[in-house]
């Protein structure tokens, strides 16, 4: 039978089909976090149900911990009760916590691939929409709600209707100044924030295969912003060698056995997709969002679009976005003053992200009046970056070198912008008020964020590096 990659993983995880037509999909690894799990523990216990597989379940503390240097669980007072409830609930149910001082602490979507917990062809669930990140290793992941989380705790399966399949073929060769984030933003500019609804996306093509694993994780991370619950890339030799030797990855004969199975994880050559899209990634410029929806994207050299050119029923939304962002049609993106820069999150806080940003920052200073924060995605990324001296590069330039966690991406840990501030952020959502009431978020990759920090305005990093600005 001819199958897509997604079908192969799905079929290998179907436990049963329920009377209502939903497939029960086995969840190989389940990571909880403190914003939602305490509520699920409470409901589960009230119903007299047990956690079926505590050995496959893990607790992250990522959404609420402060990123202030030297923080502890009480630094962000609002999050402290959730962290306490998470520790207690996990202990009661025999679940391992990746606690604040643990070597494996961090954002779950960064930690799970990094320690080799998620594996190609395996399934993964997190009560967070960015669970899809780990599709970059060829895993099938689902973000879920609190009731679904409770369902997985009780049964280790998730009850799903099978989504349709979309393939996005990324052609061409990505130039030296564009990264996975730019590819994802480019796709968003084409299909918008709902174009992927109802589908699982497989990213394919030469440009996808050429992405380093960290870039694949970034690309898959933004799948939910396209409206798809999950997306993935076929695992290949670079994925296997990236994974080899990670602490939780299989070893020895078990590795060989797993590897021979993983090598079959590709869409068959004549597999059928319900939708296909091709995007040429040659000559791709660094991208930036101008509005309040991740699909509102222009190239860094571009201008703020004019709603008059849009379809009539979309105009009010675009006008509203312009008002919120304090922009007028036709304005150049370059040169807009920036008040705050955030480099971090499950989208762009892995070691290569920090290395690329540091290469821009090195030898420069954060511009006067700009608040610049860099938050590594995990304790390991933080350690590795410090071993390379990146923390010094950032700190000497005037950045705050934060403690790991979701930080300003979701604004639940005390880090946020002020009303009217323009923020360049390497995160995933530019929604109104997300990074602070009235704060104006532009989504970018790490190098554009770094360039804005040192110039105090939106700056084409290519020009900065060649001395043009």
């Amino acid at each position, binding site marked *: 039978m001819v199958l897509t990659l997604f079908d192969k993983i799905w079929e290998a995880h179907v*436990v*049963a089909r*329920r*009377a*209502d*037509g939903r497939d*029960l999909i*086995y969840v190989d690894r389940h990571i909880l976090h403190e*914003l*939602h799990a*305490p509520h699920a523990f409470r409901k589960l216990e009230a119903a007299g*149900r047990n956690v*079926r597989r505590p*050995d496959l379940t893990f607790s992250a503390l990522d959404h609420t911990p402060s990123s202030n240097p030297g923080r502890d669980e009480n630094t962000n007072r*609002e*999050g402290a*009760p*959730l962290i306490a*409830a998470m520790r207690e609930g996990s202990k009661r149910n025999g679940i391992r916590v990746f606690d604040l001082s643990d070597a494996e602490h961090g954002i779950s979507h960064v930690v799970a691939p990094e320690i080799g*917990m998620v*594996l190609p062809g*395996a399934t993964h669930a997190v*009560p*967070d*929409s960015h669970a899809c990140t780990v599709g970059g290793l060829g895993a099938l992941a689902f973000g*879920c*709600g*609190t*009731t*679904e989380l*409770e*369902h997985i705790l009780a*049964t*280790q*399966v998730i*009850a799903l209707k099978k*989504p349709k399949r979309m393939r996005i073929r990324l052609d061409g060769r990505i130039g030296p100044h564009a990264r996975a984030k730019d590819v994802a933003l480019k796709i968003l500019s084409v299909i918008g*924030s*709902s174009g992927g*609804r*109802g589908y699982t996306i497989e990213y394919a093509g030469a440009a996808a295969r050429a992405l380093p694993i960290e870039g694949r994780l970034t690309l898959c991370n933004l799948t939910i912003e396209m*409206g798809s*619950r999950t997306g993935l890339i076929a695992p290949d030799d670079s994925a296997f060698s990236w994974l080899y030797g990670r602490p939780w990855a*299989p070893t020895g004969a078990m590795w060989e*056995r*797993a590897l021979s*199975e993983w090598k079959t994880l590709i869409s068959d050559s004549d597999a059928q997709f319900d939708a296909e899209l091709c995007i040429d990634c040659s000559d791709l410029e660094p991208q930036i969002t101008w509005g309040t*929806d991740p699909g509102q994207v222009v190239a860094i050299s571009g201008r703020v679009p004019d709603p008059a050119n849009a379809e009539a029923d979309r105009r*009010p*939304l675009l006008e509203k976005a312009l008002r919120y962002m304090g922009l007028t049609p036709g304005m150049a993106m370059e040169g807009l003053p920036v008040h705050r820069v955030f480099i971090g999150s499950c989208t762009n806080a892995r070691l290569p992200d920090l290395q690329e940003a540091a290469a821009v920052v090195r030898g420069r200073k954060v511009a006067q009046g700009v608040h610049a924060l860099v938050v590594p995605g995990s304790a390991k990324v933080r350690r590795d970056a410090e071993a390379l001296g990146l923390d010094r590069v950032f700190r000497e330039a005037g950045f705050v070198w934060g403690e790991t966690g979701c930080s300003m991406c*979701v*604004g*639940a840990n005390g880090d*946020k912008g002020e*009303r009217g501030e323009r923020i360049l952020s390497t995160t995933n*959502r530019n*929604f*109104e*008020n997300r990074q602070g*009431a009235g704060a104006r978020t532009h989504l970018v990759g790490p190098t554009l964020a770094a360039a804005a920090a040192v110039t105090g305005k939106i700056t084409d990093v290519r020009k900065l590096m060649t001395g043009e600005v």
Partner: protein
Amino acid sequence: MQPFTVVEGVAAPLLEDDVNTDQIAPLGSSAWMNPDYAKMFFARRRKTANGADEPGFVFNRPQFHAPEILVTGSNFGCGSSREAAVWCLQAAGIRCIVARSFADIFRENCLQNGVAPIVLDPDDAHAFEALAVTIDGRSKIRVDLAAQIIKLADGTVFKFELPLADRTRLLEGLDDIGLTMKHLSEITAYEERVSLQHPWRSKP
């Protein structure tokens, strides 16, 4: 879960696309362990920058303080997976959402909580939205899930279709975990099979 059979009430029009869960249920509220979902419900959009009530916002208008039905645009509930978005809508009285389309995870969260996610044909949707604006909460609208119809006070009827499985789940108020628990022996058998055939998956 409370079964959904017939809901009759006021329909609040929020005719925008891409209303996201950050708007519906903004984070940053204190007392996260025991949140006040009614207070969280569109908390930022309901206030002006200086903290007063935003008079133009639909849910601040007196007739829409406790609407049973929400009428909205496409991709409703996009963004985060937070189920609090549905709990906030419920706390505001909403039991039924008529939208152009729903974000995937949000729609699942609706079904988990007995909230009916309804999509009309595009032509009907346009007409229904216009009528909801004209009626402006002055008369009640009836949603009959078993018959799959929406009926206005003047007798106008709109038909919709919800897949049978989703409809049954809402009509009977079925507990999703309970449905799956019937398959425990299959789950156990699956686990045994995986531990033999794909052992790297069964042990972290």
